[in-house]
Protein backbone atom coordinates (compact mmCIF):
# COMPACT_ATOMS: atom_id res chain seq x y z
CA UNK A 1 0.00 0.00 0.00
CA UNK A 2 2.71 2.45 0.99
CA UNK A 3 5.47 2.47 -1.55
CA UNK A 4 9.03 1.83 -0.59
CA UNK A 5 10.42 5.25 0.25
CA UNK A 6 13.14 6.48 -2.03
CA UNK A 7 15.55 9.33 -1.74
CA UNK A 8 15.54 10.18 -5.40
CA UNK A 9 13.84 13.45 -6.20
CA UNK A 10 14.83 15.43 -3.14
CA UNK A 11 15.40 18.05 -5.78
CA UNK A 12 18.12 20.50 -6.60
CA UNK A 13 20.59 21.61 -3.96
CA UNK A 14 19.35 24.58 -1.95
CA UNK A 15 21.38 27.07 -3.95
CA UNK A 16 18.54 27.16 -6.53
CA UNK A 17 17.15 30.67 -7.17
CA UNK A 18 14.21 31.60 -5.00
CA UNK A 19 11.90 32.69 -7.80
CA UNK A 20 9.08 35.22 -7.57
CA UNK A 21 7.27 35.61 -4.25
CA UNK A 22 3.64 34.45 -4.07
CA UNK A 23 1.03 37.10 -4.82
CA UNK A 24 -2.55 37.70 -3.74
CA UNK A 25 -3.71 35.78 -6.82
CA UNK A 26 -1.72 32.74 -5.63
CA UNK A 27 -3.39 32.96 -2.23
CA UNK A 28 -6.82 33.20 -3.92
CA UNK A 29 -6.02 30.19 -6.11
CA UNK A 30 -5.08 28.22 -2.99
CA UNK A 31 -8.25 29.27 -1.18
CA UNK A 32 -10.33 28.25 -4.19
CA UNK A 33 -8.67 24.82 -4.21
CA UNK A 34 -9.38 24.48 -0.49
CA UNK A 35 -13.03 25.46 -0.96
CA UNK A 36 -13.56 23.27 -4.03
CA UNK A 37 -11.94 20.11 -2.62
CA UNK A 38 -14.15 19.74 0.43
CA UNK A 39 -17.31 17.80 -0.29
CA UNK A 40 -19.17 19.80 2.33
CA UNK A 41 -19.00 22.93 0.16
CA UNK A 42 -20.94 21.43 -2.73
CA UNK A 43 -23.29 19.53 -0.44
CA UNK A 44 -24.16 22.57 1.66
CA UNK A 45 -24.74 24.72 -1.42
CA UNK A 46 -26.99 22.01 -2.87
CA UNK A 47 -28.94 21.78 0.38
CA UNK A 48 -29.36 25.56 0.40
CA UNK A 49 -30.59 25.53 -3.22
CA UNK A 50 -33.06 22.71 -2.58
CA UNK A 51 -34.34 24.38 0.58
CA UNK A 52 -34.85 27.71 -1.13
CA UNK A 53 -36.40 26.46 -4.35
CA UNK A 54 -38.39 23.61 -2.79
CA UNK A 55 -39.80 25.53 0.15
CA UNK A 56 -40.56 28.59 -1.96
CA UNK A 57 -42.51 26.51 -4.48
CA UNK A 58 -44.36 24.72 -1.68
CA UNK A 59 -45.22 27.91 0.16
CA UNK A 60 -46.32 29.60 -3.08
CA UNK A 61 -48.50 26.64 -3.97
CA UNK A 62 -50.04 26.61 -0.51
CA UNK A 63 -50.57 30.37 -0.36
CA UNK A 64 -52.29 30.53 -3.73
CA UNK A 65 -54.15 27.24 -3.35
CA UNK A 66 -55.75 28.33 -0.08
CA UNK A 67 -55.44 32.11 -0.07
CA UNK A 68 -56.32 32.81 3.54
CA UNK A 69 -53.76 35.58 3.33
CA UNK A 70 -55.51 36.83 0.25
CA UNK A 71 -54.37 40.34 0.74
CA UNK A 72 -50.66 39.46 0.63
CA UNK A 73 -51.14 37.30 -2.45
CA UNK A 74 -52.39 40.39 -4.19
CA UNK A 75 -49.88 42.88 -2.82
CA UNK A 76 -46.60 40.97 -2.49
CA UNK A 77 -46.41 37.94 -4.80
CA UNK A 78 -42.63 38.26 -5.12
CA UNK A 79 -42.30 38.08 -1.35
CA UNK A 80 -44.22 34.78 -1.36
CA UNK A 81 -42.14 33.38 -4.20
CA UNK A 82 -39.01 34.15 -2.18
CA UNK A 83 -40.31 32.83 1.17
CA UNK A 84 -38.04 29.77 1.16
CA UNK A 85 -34.95 31.98 1.19
CA UNK A 86 -35.28 32.47 4.93
CA UNK A 87 -33.94 28.96 5.47
CA UNK A 88 -31.47 29.30 2.63
CA UNK A 89 -29.91 32.34 4.32
CA UNK A 90 -29.40 30.33 7.48
CA UNK A 91 -27.70 27.48 5.58
CA UNK A 92 -25.42 29.91 3.75
CA UNK A 93 -24.51 31.67 6.98
CA UNK A 94 -23.55 28.30 8.50
CA UNK A 95 -21.45 27.45 5.43
CA UNK A 96 -19.62 30.74 5.82
CA UNK A 97 -18.90 29.98 9.47
CA UNK A 98 -17.56 26.51 8.65
CA UNK A 99 -15.32 27.72 5.83
CA UNK A 100 -13.17 29.41 8.49
CA UNK A 101 -13.74 27.37 11.63
CA UNK A 102 -12.99 24.01 9.97
CA UNK A 103 -9.42 25.25 9.58
CA UNK A 104 -9.12 25.76 13.31
CA UNK A 105 -10.87 22.55 14.33
CA UNK A 106 -8.80 20.41 11.95
CA UNK A 107 -5.39 22.02 12.45
CA UNK A 108 -5.28 23.07 8.79
CA UNK A 109 -4.81 26.66 9.93
CA UNK A 110 -1.18 25.91 10.84
CA UNK A 111 -0.47 24.79 7.26
CA UNK A 112 -2.34 27.81 5.93
CA UNK A 113 -0.41 30.37 7.96
CA UNK A 114 2.93 28.66 7.34
CA UNK A 115 2.28 28.83 3.59
CA UNK A 116 1.02 32.42 3.82
CA UNK A 117 2.30 34.15 6.97
CA UNK A 118 0.46 37.35 5.99
CA UNK A 119 -2.75 36.45 7.76
CA UNK A 120 -4.82 39.37 6.53
CA UNK A 121 -4.00 38.31 2.98
CA UNK A 122 -5.42 34.87 3.74
CA UNK A 123 -8.62 36.40 5.14
CA UNK A 124 -9.01 38.74 2.17
CA UNK A 125 -8.44 35.91 -0.31
CA UNK A 126 -10.95 33.70 1.51
CA UNK A 127 -13.53 36.49 1.52
CA UNK A 128 -13.04 37.24 -2.19
CA UNK A 129 -13.19 33.64 -3.37
CA UNK A 130 -16.15 32.73 -1.16
CA UNK A 131 -18.04 35.91 -2.11
CA UNK A 132 -17.60 35.27 -5.83
CA UNK A 133 -18.69 31.64 -5.53
CA UNK A 134 -21.76 32.53 -3.44
CA UNK A 135 -22.73 35.42 -5.68
CA UNK A 136 -22.82 33.18 -8.76
CA UNK A 137 -24.64 30.34 -6.99
CA UNK A 138 -27.15 32.58 -5.21
CA UNK A 139 -28.04 34.59 -8.33
CA UNK A 140 -28.62 31.37 -10.29
CA UNK A 141 -30.75 29.97 -7.46
CA UNK A 142 -32.65 33.24 -7.15
CA UNK A 143 -33.58 33.32 -10.83
CA UNK A 144 -34.53 29.62 -10.92
CA UNK A 145 -36.57 30.20 -7.77
CA UNK A 146 -38.37 33.20 -9.25
CA UNK A 147 -39.28 31.52 -12.52
CA UNK A 148 -40.44 28.37 -10.77
CA UNK A 149 -42.63 30.45 -8.47
CA UNK A 150 -43.86 32.37 -11.48
CA UNK A 151 -44.86 29.06 -13.08
CA UNK A 152 -46.71 27.97 -9.92
CA UNK A 153 -48.65 31.25 -9.79
CA UNK A 154 -49.59 30.99 -13.45
CA UNK A 155 -51.61 27.92 -12.45
CA UNK A 156 -53.92 30.33 -10.57
CA UNK A 157 -55.11 32.68 -13.33
CA UNK A 158 -57.46 34.53 -10.98
CA UNK A 159 -54.42 36.19 -9.32
CA UNK A 160 -52.01 38.69 -10.85
CA UNK A 161 -48.78 37.05 -11.97
CA UNK A 162 -45.59 39.02 -11.23
CA UNK A 163 -43.49 39.52 -14.35
CA UNK A 164 -39.72 39.89 -14.21
CA UNK A 165 -40.16 43.22 -16.02
CA UNK A 166 -42.53 44.51 -13.35
CA UNK A 167 -41.75 47.44 -11.08
CA UNK A 168 -38.71 46.55 -8.87
CA UNK A 169 -39.16 42.82 -9.60
CA UNK A 170 -35.81 42.30 -11.33
CA UNK A 171 -34.13 44.30 -8.56
CA UNK A 172 -35.78 42.08 -5.95
CA UNK A 173 -34.64 38.88 -7.68
CA UNK A 174 -31.05 40.06 -8.09
CA UNK A 175 -31.15 41.57 -4.59
CA UNK A 176 -32.25 38.24 -3.11
CA UNK A 177 -29.18 36.53 -4.58
CA UNK A 178 -26.97 39.32 -3.27
CA UNK A 179 -28.52 38.99 0.18
CA UNK A 180 -27.77 35.24 0.10
CA UNK A 181 -24.11 35.92 -0.65
CA UNK A 182 -23.99 38.51 2.13
CA UNK A 183 -25.47 36.03 4.63
CA UNK A 184 -22.60 33.67 3.79
CA UNK A 185 -20.05 36.45 4.19
CA UNK A 186 -21.51 37.43 7.54
CA UNK A 187 -21.03 33.81 8.65
CA UNK A 188 -17.45 33.84 7.39
CA UNK A 189 -16.71 37.05 9.28
CA UNK A 190 -18.26 35.66 12.49
CA UNK A 191 -16.28 32.43 12.07
CA UNK A 192 -13.02 34.33 11.60
CA UNK A 193 -13.75 36.48 14.62
CA UNK A 194 -14.88 33.73 17.02
CA UNK A 195 -12.93 30.74 15.56
CA UNK A 196 -15.45 28.39 17.07
CA UNK A 197 -18.24 26.97 14.91
CA UNK A 198 -20.84 26.60 17.66
CA UNK A 199 -20.30 30.11 18.97
CA UNK A 200 -20.30 31.72 15.53
CA UNK A 201 -23.44 29.87 14.41
CA UNK A 202 -25.21 30.82 17.63
CA UNK A 203 -24.43 34.49 17.08
CA UNK A 204 -25.38 34.26 13.39
CA UNK A 205 -28.73 32.66 14.24
CA UNK A 206 -29.25 35.35 16.85
CA UNK A 207 -28.69 38.08 14.30
CA UNK A 208 -30.89 36.57 11.57
CA UNK A 209 -33.64 34.78 13.53
CA UNK A 210 -33.82 36.03 17.08
CA UNK A 211 -33.89 39.77 16.54
CA UNK A 212 -37.20 39.67 14.58
CA UNK A 213 -38.79 37.67 17.42
CA UNK A 214 -37.42 39.94 20.13
CA UNK A 215 -38.59 42.99 18.18
CA UNK A 216 -42.15 41.66 18.24
CA UNK A 217 -42.11 41.79 22.05
CA UNK A 218 -40.78 45.33 22.21
CA UNK A 219 -42.84 48.53 22.08
CA UNK A 220 -42.88 49.94 18.56
CA UNK A 221 -40.98 53.04 19.69
CA UNK A 222 -38.00 50.72 20.15
CA UNK A 223 -38.70 47.98 17.64
CA UNK A 224 -39.28 50.31 14.67
CA UNK A 225 -35.86 51.98 14.70
CA UNK A 226 -34.26 48.67 15.74
CA UNK A 227 -35.70 46.88 12.74
CA UNK A 228 -34.91 49.81 10.49
CA UNK A 229 -31.18 49.67 11.14
CA UNK A 230 -30.71 46.03 12.15
CA UNK A 231 -28.23 44.86 9.47
CA UNK A 232 -30.01 41.73 8.30
CA UNK A 233 -33.41 43.48 8.31
CA UNK A 234 -32.07 46.50 6.47
CA UNK A 235 -30.24 44.29 3.98
CA UNK A 236 -33.46 42.43 3.29
CA UNK A 237 -35.10 45.56 1.85
CA UNK A 238 -33.33 44.98 -1.46
CA UNK A 239 -35.45 41.91 -2.11
CA UNK A 240 -38.71 43.79 -1.43
CA UNK A 241 -40.72 45.10 -4.35
CA UNK A 242 -42.51 47.70 -2.22
CA UNK A 243 -40.88 49.92 0.37
CA UNK A 244 -41.87 48.70 3.84
CA UNK A 245 -42.88 50.99 6.67
CA UNK A 246 -40.09 51.88 9.13
CA UNK A 247 -37.29 50.61 6.94
CA UNK A 248 -34.36 51.94 5.03
CA UNK A 249 -34.68 52.15 1.27
CA UNK A 250 -33.33 49.16 -0.68
CA UNK A 251 -29.80 50.36 -1.37
CA UNK A 252 -29.31 52.22 1.93
CA UNK A 253 -30.41 49.02 3.66
CA UNK A 254 -27.93 46.96 1.69
CA UNK A 255 -25.24 49.49 2.54
CA UNK A 256 -26.13 49.06 6.22
CA UNK A 257 -25.61 45.27 6.00
CA UNK A 258 -22.43 45.60 3.94
CA UNK A 259 -21.02 48.08 6.45
CA UNK A 260 -21.85 45.69 9.30
CA UNK A 261 -20.06 42.81 7.57
CA UNK A 262 -17.13 45.08 6.73
CA UNK A 263 -16.76 46.04 10.40
CA UNK A 264 -16.96 42.38 11.45
CA UNK A 265 -14.22 41.53 8.94
CA UNK A 266 -12.10 44.42 10.16
CA UNK A 267 -12.39 43.13 13.72
CA UNK A 268 -11.65 39.58 12.51
CA UNK A 269 -8.56 40.76 10.63
CA UNK A 270 -7.33 42.62 13.69
CA UNK A 271 -7.89 39.57 15.93
CA UNK A 272 -6.21 37.32 13.37
CA UNK A 273 -3.02 39.39 13.45
CA UNK A 274 -3.02 39.94 17.21
CA UNK A 275 -3.81 36.45 18.40
CA UNK A 276 -1.60 33.38 18.29
CA UNK A 277 -2.66 30.96 15.59
Amino acid at each position, binding site marked *: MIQQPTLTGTGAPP*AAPLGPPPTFVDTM*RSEWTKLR*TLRSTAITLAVAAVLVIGLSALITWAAYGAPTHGKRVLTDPVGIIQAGWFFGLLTLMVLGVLVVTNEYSSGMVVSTFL*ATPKRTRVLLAKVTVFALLLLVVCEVVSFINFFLGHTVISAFPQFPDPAIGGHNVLRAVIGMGLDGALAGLMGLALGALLRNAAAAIAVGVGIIFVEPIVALLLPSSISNPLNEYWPTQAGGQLEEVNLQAHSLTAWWGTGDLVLFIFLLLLAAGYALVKRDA
Partner: protein
Amino acid sequence: MIQVRNLTKRFAETLAVNDLTFDVQPGTVTGFLGPNGAGKTTTLRLILGLTRPDQGTATIDGASYQHLRAPMREVGVLLDAKSYHPGRRARDHLQALAEAGRIPVSRVDEVLALVGLSEVGGRRAGTFSLGMAQRLGIAAAMLGDPPVLLLDEPVNGLDPEGIVWVRTLMQALASQGRTVLVSSHLMSEMALTATRVIVVGRGHLIADSTVEGLIKKSSGSVVRLRTPQSQLVLPRLQAAGATMTTEPDGAILVTGLEAPAVGDLAFQAGAPVYELTPVEVSLEEAFMELTQGDSEFQARGLGAPA
Protein backbone atom coordinates in the same frame (compact mmCIF):
# COMPACT_ATOMS: atom_id res chain seq x y z
CA MET B 1 20.97 29.36 9.41
CA ILE B 2 18.45 29.78 12.20
CA GLN B 3 19.28 32.32 14.89
CA VAL B 4 17.34 32.43 18.12
CA ARG B 5 18.07 35.31 20.48
CA ASN B 6 16.69 35.68 24.02
CA LEU B 7 13.40 34.12 23.04
CA THR B 8 10.91 34.25 25.90
CA LYS B 9 7.24 33.27 26.08
CA ARG B 10 5.00 33.06 29.10
CA PHE B 11 1.59 31.37 29.14
CA ALA B 12 -0.34 32.51 32.20
CA GLU B 13 1.62 30.97 35.08
CA THR B 14 4.10 28.96 33.04
CA LEU B 15 7.31 30.29 31.59
CA ALA B 16 7.22 28.09 28.50
CA VAL B 17 10.35 29.47 26.88
CA ASN B 18 12.91 31.22 29.02
CA ASP B 19 15.55 33.44 27.40
CA LEU B 20 16.59 30.89 24.78
CA THR B 21 19.56 31.71 22.56
CA PHE B 22 21.07 29.32 20.03
CA ASP B 23 22.11 28.97 16.40
CA VAL B 24 21.31 26.16 14.01
CA GLN B 25 23.99 25.71 11.37
CA PRO B 26 23.53 24.49 7.81
CA GLY B 27 24.99 21.19 6.68
CA THR B 28 24.21 19.22 9.82
CA VAL B 29 21.23 17.66 11.48
CA THR B 30 20.65 19.48 14.75
CA GLY B 31 18.62 17.71 17.38
CA PHE B 32 16.32 19.79 19.55
CA LEU B 33 15.89 17.78 22.70
CA GLY B 34 14.01 18.02 25.89
CA PRO B 35 11.51 16.13 28.01
CA ASN B 36 7.81 16.52 27.27
CA GLY B 37 6.69 20.01 28.17
CA ALA B 38 10.19 21.47 27.90
CA GLY B 39 9.04 24.12 25.43
CA LYS B 40 10.30 22.56 22.20
CA THR B 41 7.11 22.97 20.21
CA THR B 42 6.51 26.46 21.60
CA THR B 43 10.02 27.46 20.52
CA LEU B 44 9.38 26.16 17.01
CA ARG B 45 6.03 28.02 16.89
CA LEU B 46 7.82 31.20 17.99
CA ILE B 47 10.43 30.77 15.25
CA LEU B 48 7.60 30.35 12.73
CA GLY B 49 5.57 33.33 13.88
CA LEU B 50 2.57 31.20 14.86
CA THR B 51 2.99 32.33 18.45
CA ARG B 52 4.19 35.79 19.37
CA PRO B 53 7.20 36.00 21.68
CA ASP B 54 7.08 38.17 24.81
CA GLN B 55 10.73 38.97 24.21
CA GLY B 56 13.50 38.07 21.83
CA THR B 57 13.77 37.33 18.14
CA ALA B 58 14.14 34.40 15.81
CA THR B 59 15.43 34.75 12.28
CA ILE B 60 15.90 32.38 9.38
CA ASP B 61 18.76 33.41 7.12
CA GLY B 62 18.47 36.90 8.54
CA ALA B 63 14.71 37.49 8.31
CA SER B 64 11.85 36.68 10.62
CA TYR B 65 9.45 34.08 9.21
CA GLN B 66 6.75 36.69 8.48
CA HIS B 67 9.21 38.65 6.37
CA LEU B 68 10.43 35.79 4.20
CA ARG B 69 9.74 36.48 0.53
CA ALA B 70 8.62 32.97 -0.35
CA PRO B 71 8.31 31.09 2.96
CA MET B 72 7.47 27.68 1.52
CA ARG B 73 10.54 27.78 -0.70
CA GLU B 74 12.77 28.98 2.14
CA VAL B 75 11.62 26.88 5.10
CA GLY B 76 9.99 23.47 5.17
CA VAL B 77 7.98 22.74 8.31
CA LEU B 78 6.45 19.70 9.92
CA LEU B 79 4.80 20.88 13.11
CA ASP B 80 1.81 18.75 13.90
CA ALA B 81 1.36 15.72 11.66
CA LYS B 82 -2.37 16.41 11.36
CA SER B 83 -2.19 19.93 9.99
CA TYR B 84 -4.73 19.16 7.30
CA HIS B 85 -8.48 18.87 6.88
CA PRO B 86 -9.45 15.18 7.19
CA GLY B 87 -12.04 15.48 4.42
CA ARG B 88 -9.60 16.68 1.81
CA ARG B 89 -7.67 14.31 -0.44
CA ALA B 90 -3.93 14.23 0.24
CA ARG B 91 -3.14 15.41 -3.28
CA ASP B 92 -5.61 18.33 -3.05
CA HIS B 93 -4.17 19.34 0.32
CA LEU B 94 -0.69 19.52 -1.20
CA GLN B 95 -2.01 21.33 -4.27
CA ALA B 96 -3.58 24.07 -2.14
CA LEU B 97 -0.28 24.54 -0.29
CA ALA B 98 1.74 24.53 -3.53
CA GLU B 99 -0.51 27.22 -4.97
CA ALA B 100 -0.24 29.35 -1.85
CA GLY B 101 3.55 29.16 -2.10
CA ARG B 102 3.59 29.72 -5.87
CA ILE B 103 5.17 26.33 -6.39
CA PRO B 104 4.44 24.41 -9.63
CA VAL B 105 1.62 21.93 -8.97
CA SER B 106 3.76 19.26 -10.70
CA ARG B 107 5.79 19.26 -7.46
CA VAL B 108 2.85 17.59 -5.68
CA ASP B 109 3.38 14.23 -7.39
CA GLU B 110 7.12 14.51 -6.85
CA VAL B 111 6.84 14.93 -3.08
CA LEU B 112 4.16 12.21 -2.87
CA ALA B 113 6.64 9.87 -4.56
CA LEU B 114 9.43 11.08 -2.27
CA VAL B 115 7.52 10.10 0.87
CA GLY B 116 6.06 6.93 -0.64
CA LEU B 117 2.43 8.04 -0.74
CA SER B 118 1.94 8.10 -4.55
CA GLU B 119 -0.64 5.35 -4.52
CA VAL B 120 -2.75 6.84 -1.74
CA GLY B 121 -2.59 10.48 -2.90
CA GLY B 122 -6.24 10.27 -3.95
CA ARG B 123 -7.42 9.18 -0.53
CA ARG B 124 -8.93 11.55 1.99
CA ALA B 125 -6.26 12.48 4.50
CA GLY B 126 -8.62 11.60 7.38
CA THR B 127 -8.26 7.92 6.51
CA PHE B 128 -4.48 8.03 7.01
CA SER B 129 -2.67 6.29 9.85
CA LEU B 130 -0.39 8.39 12.04
CA GLY B 131 2.59 7.13 10.06
CA MET B 132 1.02 8.16 6.76
CA ALA B 133 0.05 11.52 8.28
CA GLN B 134 3.70 12.09 9.19
CA ARG B 135 4.71 11.26 5.64
CA LEU B 136 2.12 13.69 4.28
CA GLY B 137 3.48 16.37 6.62
CA ILE B 138 7.01 15.71 5.40
CA ALA B 139 5.75 15.88 1.81
CA ALA B 140 4.25 19.32 2.56
CA ALA B 141 7.53 20.45 4.12
CA MET B 142 9.44 19.33 1.01
CA LEU B 143 7.07 21.00 -1.51
CA GLY B 144 9.20 24.11 -1.90
CA ASP B 145 12.51 22.18 -1.86
CA PRO B 146 13.61 24.49 0.98
CA PRO B 147 17.16 25.02 2.26
CA VAL B 148 15.93 25.07 5.88
CA LEU B 149 13.80 22.37 7.52
CA LEU B 150 12.11 22.39 10.91
CA LEU B 151 10.63 19.08 11.91
CA ASP B 152 8.78 18.55 15.18
CA GLU B 153 8.95 14.92 16.30
CA PRO B 154 9.01 13.56 12.73
CA VAL B 155 9.39 9.91 13.73
CA ASN B 156 6.33 9.92 15.98
CA GLY B 157 4.04 7.10 14.94
CA LEU B 158 6.32 5.71 12.28
CA ASP B 159 7.13 2.03 12.06
CA PRO B 160 10.82 0.96 12.26
CA GLU B 161 11.15 1.06 8.50
CA GLY B 162 9.69 4.56 8.46
CA ILE B 163 12.02 5.71 11.22
CA VAL B 164 15.06 4.55 9.27
CA TRP B 165 13.63 6.30 6.22
CA VAL B 166 13.21 9.65 8.02
CA ARG B 167 16.66 9.34 9.54
CA THR B 168 18.22 8.71 6.13
CA LEU B 169 16.23 11.53 4.56
CA MET B 170 17.29 14.06 7.19
CA GLN B 171 20.94 13.09 6.87
CA ALA B 172 20.75 13.26 3.07
CA LEU B 173 19.15 16.72 3.28
CA ALA B 174 21.82 17.95 5.68
CA SER B 175 24.59 16.54 3.50
CA GLN B 176 23.22 18.63 0.63
CA GLY B 177 24.01 21.65 2.76
CA ARG B 178 20.56 22.30 4.18
CA THR B 179 19.83 23.40 7.72
CA VAL B 180 17.87 20.68 9.50
CA LEU B 181 16.41 21.16 12.97
CA VAL B 182 14.63 18.12 14.40
CA SER B 183 12.92 18.09 17.75
CA SER B 184 12.55 14.92 19.74
CA HIS B 185 12.12 13.72 23.27
CA LEU B 186 13.89 10.49 22.32
CA MET B 187 17.60 10.83 22.95
CA SER B 188 18.36 7.46 21.38
CA GLU B 189 16.81 8.64 18.13
CA MET B 190 18.93 11.77 18.08
CA ALA B 191 22.08 9.78 18.89
CA LEU B 192 21.61 8.06 15.55
CA THR B 193 20.53 11.09 13.53
CA ALA B 194 21.95 14.32 14.84
CA THR B 195 25.45 15.74 14.85
CA ARG B 196 24.64 18.62 17.16
CA VAL B 197 22.09 18.79 19.93
CA ILE B 198 20.35 21.63 21.66
CA VAL B 199 18.90 20.45 24.95
CA VAL B 200 16.13 22.36 26.73
CA GLY B 201 14.30 21.74 29.97
CA ARG B 202 11.52 23.86 31.43
CA GLY B 203 12.05 26.40 28.68
CA HIS B 204 15.70 27.16 29.24
CA LEU B 205 18.83 26.04 27.47
CA ILE B 206 20.64 23.14 29.16
CA ALA B 207 23.20 22.24 26.54
CA ASP B 208 24.22 23.28 23.06
CA SER B 209 27.03 21.11 21.76
CA THR B 210 27.97 18.24 19.50
CA VAL B 211 26.59 14.83 20.37
CA GLU B 212 30.14 13.67 21.12
CA GLY B 213 30.81 16.63 23.36
CA LEU B 214 27.65 16.03 25.29
CA ILE B 215 28.53 12.40 25.92
CA LYS B 216 32.10 13.26 26.88
CA LYS B 217 30.97 15.97 29.26
CA SER B 218 28.62 13.63 31.06
CA SER B 219 30.86 10.60 31.14
CA GLY B 220 33.86 12.66 32.28
CA SER B 221 36.37 10.00 31.26
CA VAL B 222 35.66 6.73 33.02
CA VAL B 223 37.87 3.72 32.32
CA ARG B 224 37.18 0.10 33.22
CA LEU B 225 40.30 -1.72 34.35
CA ARG B 226 40.61 -5.42 34.98
CA THR B 227 43.79 -6.76 36.51
CA PRO B 228 44.66 -9.71 38.79
CA GLN B 229 47.02 -7.49 40.80
CA SER B 230 44.96 -4.48 41.65
CA GLN B 231 46.84 -3.95 44.92
CA LEU B 232 49.86 -2.88 42.85
CA VAL B 233 47.92 -0.44 40.66
CA LEU B 234 45.46 1.19 43.05
CA PRO B 235 48.00 3.27 45.03
CA ARG B 236 49.48 4.64 41.83
CA LEU B 237 46.06 5.56 40.45
CA GLN B 238 45.19 7.22 43.73
CA ALA B 239 48.44 9.15 43.65
CA ALA B 240 47.57 10.33 40.13
CA GLY B 241 44.33 11.83 41.48
CA ALA B 242 41.82 9.29 40.17
CA THR B 243 38.89 7.89 42.12
CA MET B 244 38.05 4.21 41.96
CA THR B 245 35.02 2.04 42.50
CA THR B 246 35.03 -1.73 42.31
CA GLU B 247 32.31 -3.50 40.38
CA PRO B 248 30.81 -6.76 41.68
CA ASP B 249 32.73 -8.82 39.13
CA GLY B 250 36.05 -7.35 40.28
CA ALA B 251 36.51 -4.77 37.54
CA ILE B 252 37.69 -1.35 38.68
CA LEU B 253 36.01 1.81 37.36
CA VAL B 254 38.61 4.57 37.26
CA THR B 255 37.28 8.12 37.06
CA GLY B 256 39.45 11.11 36.22
CA LEU B 257 42.11 9.55 34.01
CA GLU B 258 42.19 8.73 30.32
CA ALA B 259 42.72 5.11 29.24
CA PRO B 260 46.36 5.56 28.10
CA ALA B 261 47.31 7.07 31.48
CA VAL B 262 45.69 4.17 33.33
CA GLY B 263 47.48 1.69 31.05
CA ASP B 264 50.85 3.39 31.64
CA LEU B 265 50.39 3.31 35.40
CA ALA B 266 49.52 -0.39 35.33
CA PHE B 267 52.57 -1.08 33.20
CA GLN B 268 54.84 0.86 35.57
CA ALA B 269 53.40 -1.14 38.48
CA GLY B 270 54.17 -4.35 36.61
CA ALA B 271 50.56 -5.51 36.78
CA PRO B 272 49.13 -7.48 33.86
CA VAL B 273 46.09 -5.81 32.28
CA TYR B 274 43.19 -8.02 31.20
CA GLU B 275 40.85 -5.24 30.22
CA LEU B 276 41.19 -1.52 29.68
CA THR B 277 38.02 0.05 28.28
CA PRO B 278 36.94 3.69 28.10
CA VAL B 279 33.35 3.75 29.35
CA GLU B 280 30.91 6.05 27.57
CA VAL B 281 27.57 6.90 28.99
CA SER B 282 24.90 6.66 26.35
CA LEU B 283 23.38 9.84 25.04
CA GLU B 284 20.25 8.67 26.83
CA GLU B 285 22.03 8.71 30.18
CA ALA B 286 23.67 12.04 29.42
CA PHE B 287 20.25 13.44 28.63
CA MET B 288 18.70 12.06 31.78
CA GLU B 289 21.51 13.50 33.84
CA LEU B 290 21.20 16.90 32.19
CA THR B 291 17.45 17.20 32.40
CA GLN B 292 17.05 15.78 35.88
CA GLY B 293 14.65 18.02 37.73
CA ASP B 294 13.81 19.82 34.52
CA SER B 295 11.00 17.67 33.27
CA GLU B 296 7.57 19.12 33.62
CA PHE B 297 5.91 15.92 34.76
CA GLN B 298 7.81 13.55 36.97
CA ALA B 299 6.43 10.14 37.62
CA ARG B 300 6.46 8.86 41.16
CA GLY B 301 7.24 5.25 41.79
CA LEU B 302 4.35 2.93 42.43
CA GLY B 303 3.29 3.04 46.04
CA ALA B 304 5.02 6.31 46.76
CA PRO B 305 2.90 8.61 48.89
CA ALA B 306 0.88 10.92 46.69
